[in-house]
């Protein structure tokens, strides 16, 4: 089958859904680019990561909207357009910018439906680039899933590959609730087989990426491929694992984790974000409350340290959980 990068897979999902549903609009900084420039060329950017490339020429300026640098206005406008019947896909260039529009995300979008007694919906998708590994420094590299997973009313998606990204994006746009969709910068160029045409992946269904017997490994986003590397290395020693990719953090498919633990009794969670109040801790807590009796050993959380993301190559390499660290942790755990 055709191989597509995650960038192109998401781009294709946007094309498909905009063609199918006239209520879908895309807005954000430089989502097309070139407005007001001197070259006369529009679609000069297509998003700084190129994910929205080609939408403007096809769907026009009423539906593909370049905005000023005003994240609160971008997300707020997406909210208002959604209340008024559109299905906006807003781009936040980097997830780190959630800070400058967080009110519109957590006090507005997330709460409309409940505050208004279930009488409305706010079907927005916030697409945003996430993650460390490109030496972009402390304000352009964070993994901020936990901040939105904590908020009732939001749904949270973190795809780990191009195939899932396309199917999850189609689900996200069609979902009637506000969705925050995290795209890992390091995964944009990564390719895998992606079918043409329309398919969706339901929210709240984890992928069982590998099956094994000694340990349950839950990995998020880019960490899925890191876990696979670690498991490849461990296979030589006969250590195998259930590798679970939750794909959506809210709703979270915790049942699949509990079921796996019935067999393995051992849990490793890998999360690129810092440890406190993280998704790793969230999953660990759910297990310690709901599947405690399946546990044969302490839960192992592999996360970044409790520090901002450092800039220097050497430091950032140490910051992000590595396949080696994962391998070592699993090896130690299965011995317990």
């Amino acid at each position, binding site marked *: 089958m055709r191989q597509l990068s995650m960038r192109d897979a998401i781009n294709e999902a946007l094309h498909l859904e905009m063609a199918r549903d006239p209520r879908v609009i895309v807005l954000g900084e430089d989502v097309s680019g070139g407005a007001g420039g001197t070259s006369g060329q529009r679609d000069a950017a297509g998003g700084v990561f190129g994910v929205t490339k080609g939408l403007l020429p096809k769907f026009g300026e009423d539906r593909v909207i370049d905005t*000023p640098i005003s994240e609160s206005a971008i997300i707020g406008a997406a*909210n*208002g357009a959604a209340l*008024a019947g559109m299905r906006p896909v807003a781009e936040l260039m980097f997830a780190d910018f959630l800070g400058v529009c967080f009110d519109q995300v957590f006090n507005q979008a997330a709460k409309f439906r409940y505050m208004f007694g*279930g009488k409305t919906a706010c079907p927005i998708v916030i697409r945003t680039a996430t993650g460390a590994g490109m030496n972009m420094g402390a304000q352009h590299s964070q993994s901020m899933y936990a901040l939105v997973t904590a908020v009732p*009313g939001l749904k949270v998606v973190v795809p780990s590959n191009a195939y899932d990204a396309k199917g999850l994006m189609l689900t996200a746009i069609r979902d009637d609730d506000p969705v925050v969709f995290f795209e890992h910068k390091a995964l944009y160029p990564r390719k895998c087989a992606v079918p043409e045409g329309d398919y969706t992946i339901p929210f709240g269904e984890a992928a069982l990426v590998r099956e094994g017997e000694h340990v349950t490994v839950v990995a998020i986003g880019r960490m899925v491929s890191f876990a696979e590397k670690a498991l490849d290395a461990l296979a030589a020693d006969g250590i195998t694992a259930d590798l679970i990719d939750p794909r959506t953090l809210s709703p979270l498919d915790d049942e699949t984790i509990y079921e796996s633990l019935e067999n393995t009794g051992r849990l490793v969670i890998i999360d690129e974000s810092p440890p406190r109040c993280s998704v790793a801790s969230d999953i660990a807590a759910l297990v310690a409350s709901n599947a405690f009796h399946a546990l044969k050993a302490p839960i192992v959380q592999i996360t970044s340290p409790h520090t901002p993301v450092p800039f220097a190559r050497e430091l950032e390499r140490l910051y992000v959980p590595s396949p080696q660290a994962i391998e070592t942790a699993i090896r130690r755990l299965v011995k317990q």
Partner: protein
Amino acid sequence: MPLPPDRLLRAYRQMKTIREFEERLHVEIQTGEIPGFTHLYSGQEAVAVGVCEHLGDADWIASTHRGHGHCIAKGCDVTGMMLEIYGRRDGLCKGKGGSMHIADMSKGMLGANAIVGGGPPIAVGAAIACKARRDGKVAVAFGGDGSCNQGTVFEAMNLAVVLKAPAIFVFEDNGYSEHTGADYAVGSRDIAGRARGFGMPAETCDGSDFFAVHAAMARALELARNGGGPSTIEAKTTRFFGHFEGDPMLYRAKDEVARHRETMDCLRIFRARVTTEGLLDDAALDAVDAEVMGLIDRSVAAARSAAPPTAADLLTDVYVSY
């Protein structure tokens, strides 16, 4: 061109409904039966009604923490609102929202908002939707003098200018944000001037005069509906109560409210004008007054006896599906 009598009477009825709704709440709150804290709109009625008199259900407004007036002017059900403010199961938001979160999409009411500056970006989004659909509708963002210091408001204004969105920003300068005077907190004390700085037309009007607000809105609307983009109306007004119910108003001169009730009461000003000019007569207006009092009585009675929400209601309406 003067408004026809039926529209004048409707406008009066709405202003009067807001006034009596608020004056009655002010009384009922003393009973302790109304939960939370409430911000009354009394005194500013001419702004909400002067603006919304032009709008239909398919036009949009985004409101503020002081939202009862905007809700009523935009056509929200008065009894549904009263039930909501009492936190009843059959309230407009099933008792989940309360005074600061009343909304009704079927009436084009995008919600009161307990976050100062929360509404304007949302209104611009609704305006973007109108533009994309070419449905000829507009979106209005209400805000106070205090809100005009919140960055989100300026972002919304600039975005509307850039996109030539059919958005209208209405600032109600009632002189105060909570306990602080606008002449202190609004750097220039010239909100319209700020709006012009962003490249949109803006005018200042007397917010106690329904006709002045109505005329300003007519101009803003014509611009917006003809693809001319956003504009701003700054209405000078006053609130007759404290910032919230219970506010001792230490920051206001002792006689200020009494004075303003004398000189800036939009209902009196309206009645004087329409009767002097022979547009409506006192009998018709008095009839409206009586009718409104009945409506408010009935809505309070309904709210008092209505059932509260139940445990099952706690967990519903968070998501459409999860």
